[in-house]
């Protein structure tokens, strides 16, 4: 996959580039701020842009805003936003109407190289990768919710992994069960929450996230 990296810390930028290179991706451009990202995406049309939220000049959320702009200008470029901290509100802004090709992860997740590379691949292929902490926040907010209370603990686990954007195979691997069992859990969850059966992983992620955001 062809990757553009937007990250102002040189240490992390070079580290990411090396990690992605070793993972078999091609880093076509490395930039250090929001406008740089927009230009690089226009010039290179990469498969995925990996963006830090905090960048110069204000060090608040310019990465997020640049990501939203890139999304409008080049909808085919997937975006993976990395952040020092994750908040459900930012996730909502980033996802907007479609979770296709969107990732929002804590920077720490880079440390689990295998998981991180899998997330990059998933997002680059049009999937989603939402940080478990965001999902936990979403679930925390809907705690008093009646339909959620009907889910079994296992079903809640499956729901959380679905919200993170994992495929059936990914969920099955994570929970050490068969894919068939996962499918059974998922149809039960959709029935209990009253969600229409969604086809394909992307639509499913969006359905679950929309439900959780209430």
């Amino acid at each position, binding site marked *: 996959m062809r990757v553009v990296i937007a990250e102002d810390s040189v240490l992390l930028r070079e580290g990411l580039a090396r990690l992605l290179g070793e993972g078999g991706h091609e880093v076509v451009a490395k930039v250090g701020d929001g406008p740089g990202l927009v230009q690089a995406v226009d010039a290179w049309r990469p498969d995925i842009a990996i963006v830090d939220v*905090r960048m110069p000049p204000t060090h*608040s*959320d310019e990465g997020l805003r640049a990501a939203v702009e890139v999304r409008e200008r080049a909808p085919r470029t997937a975006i993976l936003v990395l952040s*020092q*901290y994750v*908040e*459900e*509100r*930012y996730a909502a802004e980033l996802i907007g109407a479609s979770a296709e090709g969107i990732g929002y992860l*804590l*920077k*720490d997740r880079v*440390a*689990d190289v295998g998981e991180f590379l899998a997330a990059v691949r998933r997002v680059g292929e049009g999937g989603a990768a939402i940080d478990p902490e965001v999902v*936990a*926040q*979403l679930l*925390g*907010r809907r*705690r*008093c919710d009646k339909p959620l209370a009907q889910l079994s603990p296992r079903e809640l686990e499956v729901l959380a992994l679905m919200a993170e954007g994992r495929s059936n195979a990914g969920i099955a691997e994570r929970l050490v069960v068969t894919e068939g069992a996962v499918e059974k859990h998922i149809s039960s969850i959709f029935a209990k929450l009253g969600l229409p059966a969604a086809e394909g992983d992307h639509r499913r992620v969006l359905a679950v996230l929309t439900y959780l955001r209430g």
Partner: protein
Amino acid sequence: MTVHQAQAGIRPPARPPAERVWRVLGAPLDPRTWMATGYLLLSMFFGIAWFAVIITLFLLSIGLAVVWVGVPLFALKIVCLREIARVERAWARTALGADIPDPYRPPERGSLWRRLRGMATDPATWKDFLYVMVLLPLGTLWFSIVTVVWSVAFSLLAVPVWYLWLPGHRASFFEINGHANLVIGTLVEALALGLAGLLLCVVAAWVSRGLGAGHAAIARGLLGPSPQQLARRVEALQASRARTVDAAEAERRRIERDLHDGAQQRLVALAMDLGMAKERLAGDADPEAVRALVAEAHDEAKRALVELRDLARGIHPAVLADRGLDAAISALAARSPVPVEVEVDTERLASPVESIAYFVVAEALTNVAKHARATEVTVRISRERERLLVEIRDNGAGGATVAHGGGLGGLADRVAGIDGRLVVDSPPGGPTVVRAELPCGS
């Protein structure tokens, strides 16, 4: 720069004499003169109106006190009095340039009766009453003086014009029984009187300004805080400043401790694991043992990251600065182990106010999770005029206190530091209500 000068007691440089003369003679052209004159003329009419309203309500409420009607009338009188005082303060600020702060005690919370009693027993209310009573005679006096000086000044100023247009160029004044006591027969005489009128305008201007300043002083005394109140306020501010400094110091120590005990220890462990792994790789050790050490180091590194992130969030949550209270409090609520219902109804505020409101909620929620044994919490934040009200209510066991040095105690100091109030109402058996009122300007 100005502050330094004031502290060092250096006077501003003296104005050149020409400027000073102009300042004295030019008073009739100064807008402040006309504001003061307008104020003094109108104060009689305000005095009559306020007096009529207040004295009617006051006497009626006393007369009808035996039957229940007296009480609401009395309440109405107090409310009217507050509004009148508010108008008068604003009016004195605009016209006389007198900045008079509100002298009232903070409003009582709770039933209508308690709030009313709080207002009725506030000495400031009765000083307002006194002001309305003296405004009538004072206003009448000001009206008479100002009318007389200005009309005499203007009449004299008009004499030359009058003289020129009068048939026969002859004007007589103060006629008694057909005998004129003052006759203007020549242009020089007319011009002399005109000049006198001009000078009298300057006098009238300074009389108006002087009376205005005098009235401002009276208004300040009756509508503003008393010297004792001001002294108490200075003491309270000094104490609160000292506590704020202490709190900041304690906070720095806590951050230092957290860094040392948390992330730094983890990084030491990580470096140790990596060091051992390196040693073993140098020899020909069991690859399995090296792998275990590296895995352990990896875990330590990730835990250090989590601790650093939590620590940073505890110092200042970035989402608060970026997206405001609603987003930050929702995130807090989502992390709380006890279900929290959040209602935030305010636009973006000054960052110290947002920050204190956030930490009040954060600390209250931490306490709920630790001690309250509650099953639900509601957080309400709303704007009431120029105050931000923050309320955290749980259904737990109660018995919470604002202990000095405790989490809530430190917050009470921070709240007091911006002139707010923090009240904890937590009877044994619950429920606990933590309520903060923060002034937030407009």
